[in-house]
């Protein structure tokens, strides 16, 4: 009897999978893929919250052409496989018009590859790896690519009269390693000597070994291309060791001042490249900051700003294309509309060259003084 029951259950499960997809013709369905749990959940949640913020704002103002936007959000747990599964579900089961996602580079690359055949418009706020937009013309991003910010930091080093720099990077993360590669190349061409190049692996919390080597080489700056949590660990361990060099960070470093329980004196005098600055007096930026603070109680970091912009760019394109139901032609018209984008967003002025999903933008350098972020300059 047991085995009959088991077989019946199995078959029932198979048919239970048949989901009826509701097609509301008065809503526009947009898919969102982000890591809401797992190692990089903070970043996924920041992006997701910002997208939601913008969507609520647009819906409150009447939606797009009177149609309310419905977000279908899937958690990819920071894993590429889950991201691809989520993508498949969004396209086949939920039948979305477009997708905002993913957040980190590896899952985004996986989704990008999977999406080429379908040609559905996808915009990622934050995946900065070069390969993301290399598979097809349907993939867009709201951020700059890593090469650009590495160059910015190298330029900054030159501008600050630095002759000896050290690098400590995460060898198991494509983001960190890509940044380190670019930084080294630019330093070499600009005449800055890279005196130490130390690697660590994902999950490491003890950097004493690498920092000991760096201390021995006596650099003036240490380039740490890492997300804010690990940046804090490295910086505080370096200071505890007696290292006095200046720290350079990247866009992932934004958010250091918000780490719960951190000793923020460690961050005084750091510089990092970023997508936007809270000092920017422009209306779109200040409104965003105010709205975000009101909704979530903290100052938005760069990832949130990019998520916000991704939504902004996408909805604007949808409005211009004027199509609301998923189909091959509608997707193509949205893609065409995306290439025509020319708008002022939180993270800068966004335009796209035909066929290139990476926007033309500049980088801003932020510094921290007395525990406050401050805009330093554009390099």
């Amino acid at each position: 009897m047991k085995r009959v029951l088991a077989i019946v259950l199995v078959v029932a499960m198979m048919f239970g999978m048949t989901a009826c997809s509701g097609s509301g013709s008065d809503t526009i369905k947009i898919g969102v893929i982000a890591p809401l749990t797992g190692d990089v959940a903070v970043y996924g949640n920041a992006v997701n919250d910002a997208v939601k913020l913008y969507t609520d704002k647009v819906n409150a103002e009447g939606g797009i052409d009177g149609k309310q936007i419905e977000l279908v959000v899937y958690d990819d747990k920071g894993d590429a496989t889950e991201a691809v599964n989520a993508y498949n579900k969004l396209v086949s089961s939920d039948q979305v018009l477009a997708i905002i996602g993913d957040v980190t580079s590896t899952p985004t690359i996986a989704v990008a590859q999977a999406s080429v055949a379908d040609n559905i418009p996808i915009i990622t706020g934050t995946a900065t790896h070069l390969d993301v937009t290399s598979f097809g013309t349907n993939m867009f991003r709201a951020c700059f690519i890593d090469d650009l910010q590495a160059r910015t930091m190298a330029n900054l080093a030159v501008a600050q009269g630095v002759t000896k720099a050290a690098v400590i990077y995460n060898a198991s993360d494509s983001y960190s390693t890509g940044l380190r590669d670019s930084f080294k190349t630019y330093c070499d061409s600009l005449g800055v000597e890279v005196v130490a190049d130390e690697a660590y692996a994902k999950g490491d919390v003890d950097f004493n070994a690498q920092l000991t080597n760096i201390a021995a080489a006596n650099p003036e700056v240490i380039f740490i291309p890492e997300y804010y949590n690990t940046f804090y660990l490295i910086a505080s361990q370096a200071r505890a060791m007696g290292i006095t060099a200046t720290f350079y960070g990247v866009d992932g470093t934004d958010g250091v001042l918000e780490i719960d329980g951190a000793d923020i004196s460690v961050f005084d005098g750091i510089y990092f490249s970023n997508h936007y600055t809270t000092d920017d007096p422009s209306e779109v930026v200040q409104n965003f900051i105010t709205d975000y603070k009101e909704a979530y109680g903290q100052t938005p970091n760069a990832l949130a700003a990019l998520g916000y912009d991704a939504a902004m760019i996408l909805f604007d394109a949808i409005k211009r294309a004027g199509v609301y139901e998923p189909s091959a032609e509608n997707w193509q018209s949205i893609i065409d509309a995306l290439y025509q984008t020319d708008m002022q967003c939180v993270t800068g002025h966004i335009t796209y060259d035909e066929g290139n999903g990476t926007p033309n933008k500049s980088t801003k350098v932020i510094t921290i003084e007395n525990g406050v972020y401050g805009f330093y300059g554009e390099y």
Partner: protein
Amino acid sequence: MTFLTQILNGIQIGSIYALVALGYTMVYGIIKLINFAHGDIIMVGAYVTWYLIAKLYMSEWAAIALAVVGCTVLGMVIEKVAYKPLRKSARISLLITAIGISFLLENVAQLIFTANPRMFTNLFPGNMNLGNLTIPNNTAVTIVVSVVLMVGLTLLVDKTKIGKAMRAVSEDNDTAQLMGINVNSTISFTFGLGSALAALAAVLYCCSYTQINPTMGSMLGLKAFVAAVLGGIGSLPGAMVGGFVIGIAESLTKGYVASSYADAIVFGILIVVLLIKPTGFFGRTMNEKV
């Protein structure tokens, strides 16, 4: 100079591995179980201490004491609920249950505290200078406390009655029972002791490596287990020696080879030991009777 610093780094992490390895080795000695959940008890200890200090504003020492008590209780509860029913079952079931408990702890912690890493304030800030070397205070405290605890544990096992009971049960469970030893409470005590040590190791770990997250225990636990095997599983001095050796090996690999190979080297040591001398440095060769 740099070399000495690297060695010192190794001794620091090694002493933490040693403390954890002691817990592993005691439990294995007594019920022949690799308690995969041991590393996660460290994680629980870390979170409890952090929560009490950062969120409930308790004094450090009160928080640590509470964390130790909490972990002890947790360890004993896990043993009663999950491992005791399986004492007579196949070993594979026990191992799998341990893995299950480990995952359960990690994921419940993730549910409650989210995967967002939390920052732990260093309870022993500052440095001290010994000649040319700059030694952070937390390193010194870690090493000293670990050694004291190890000595204390050895004394407990060798000189006290409960220690004798532990040794008896690990030698031969049934005969010990025949001799009038309460096997169940001895086993519970062993788990409790191991967990208490884990909680202290957690505090020391967090002072040096200020970040805590739900998965911090698993790799730490695995490496501590390698240390226990290296030293001879079931042997207390072995676990200590093994811990320091693994710590130093890891530190030197990170400093002179590449950080990403550190894990591979540690497991490589494990494999070499298991193939050449499975009983480790101080273990006894077990003969199998048919």
